[in-house]
């Protein structure tokens, strides 16, 4: 890791120019280094956005396959991790659809596996709430979904989200507002049922 100091914080980028060049050249060692450094964060976002671990894994793979081609757009005005999340956002569409279809099929069959936990009742409630949220997220437009996941689950600021999605901060805030309003309605309806 001597040639690249990677990420120190989310606001400042310390990615060395040499690493960017190596990534552009599809250097396997460079890709591996970046993966080791950021895969957890990227996967976490992918799982939270998609709501399905398998689909999220495919999305993570897509992100690191697309990285050498996308790194040309990296200007160093954000952290590499943020840039990776933005790649994930750009590749998320199909994976979100696939996960939503899978979720819908599982809800019809009611064959979701039960979690193994010392507190099964609590886990079941928590899981049920999470599933309701994911089902509600499936009915949102993708841009609103991305905004609310980044804001409410990933705890990112509007500025960061604006950088990731490539939209003005005001637009991001509007998306979050509309998304939360719709989610409230959907969660209430879902709870009443």
């Amino acid at each position, binding site marked *: 890791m001597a040639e690249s100091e990677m990420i120190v914080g989310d606001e400042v980028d310390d990615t060395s120019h040499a690493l960017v060049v190596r990534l552009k050249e*599809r250097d*396997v060692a460079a*890709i*591996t280094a970046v*993966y080791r450094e950021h*895969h*957890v*964060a*990227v*996967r*976490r*976002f992918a*799982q*939270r956005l998609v*709501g399905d*671990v398998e689909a*999220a*894994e495919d999305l*993570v*793979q897509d992100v*690191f*396959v697309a990285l*050498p081609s996308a790194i040309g757009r990296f200007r160093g005005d954000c952290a590499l991790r943020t840039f990776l999340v933005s790649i994930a956002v750009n590749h998320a569409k199909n994976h979100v659809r696939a996960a939503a279809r899978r979720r819908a099929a599982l809800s019809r069959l009611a064959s979701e596996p039960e979690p193994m936990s010392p507190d099964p009742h609590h886990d079941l409630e*928590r*899981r049920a*709430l*999470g599933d*309701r*949220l*994911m089902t509600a997220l499936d009915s949102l437009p993708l841009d609103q979904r991305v905004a609310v996941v980044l804001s*409410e*689950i990933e705890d990112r600021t509007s500025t960061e989200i604006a950088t990731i999605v490539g939209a003005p901060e005001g637009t991001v805030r509007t998306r979050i507002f509309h998304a*939360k309003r719709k*989610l*409230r309605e959907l*969660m*209430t309806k879902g*709870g009443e049922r």
Partner: protein
Amino acid sequence: MSTDRHQPSMVDEDAVLANAFRSVRSEYDGEREEADLTLQRALFQTRVQKKRQRITRWALLPAAAVLIASTAWAGATGRLPSVSTMLDAIYEGREHTPPAPVPSSTSLRVPTSSTAAAFTADPTPPAAREPAAREPAASGVVASSPPSAGSAESAPASSTPSMVPSPKAARVTEALSASSAPGPTPSAPSAAAPSMARAAENAASPPRAALAPPAPSSSASDPHAALFAEAHRLHFTEHDPARALAAWDRYLDAAPNGRFAPEARYNRALALVRLGRRTEAQQELAAFSNGMYGEYRRADAKALFDALARDASSP
């Protein structure tokens, strides 16, 4: 009141939503046992992409550059037409098409004299496509020694051009039938000759484009094209059948197997008709109507031949 009632419900909803967000946050922490497997898959795909990129960069791009450069060089040095002719020959050789005097398909569509087509056609056909040696009878006409039909038919089969009959044939037939229709039918054979000549002239009158001199490229690649052009000019521009006949003979003497030889022979027959030398003209036309050149000018020649025969037999 309603606001008071609404307020707690909003708070409840927000709490539910917040709990749901928290639940998702805690459920998905980004850890996965298969993380290394995902890395391996990503690296495999990256290697494949890199390989493709390398092939594109080191093989396809240089090959494309070489192709472009060589094409530009061939175009600049004038080698491109010969390459295209060579490819043409290879292509036609594969198809085993019979040799044709005028290979260009455009010539097949020209309804009037194929002279025009001959000028516009590819000037450097393969030698195999040219008709066989000119029958001695043709030159014998000038030497007032009429050729026999047998000599015309004795030409090798390979010289038979495969041409689609020109639509002009129908018009020739009409013109000839008009000339032989009841009316001022000439009583003497000598008087019939001019009407035939007119018919022949109508049949062979070239379009405006045909009157244009041969393109420099065709002259450059066919040394006898100038002779043909001269004969064509005398025939169709100056309307001087005697000098045209001599010019056609000069061309045929110089290039008996030339690219335009069949057309020159046909035009020579027309000149003979205009000069009233019916017997010689018929002998020349017989070669065409007997199929010595395949379908090339066959219908035109037959119509003209029949018209000459009818005029000869009419009182």
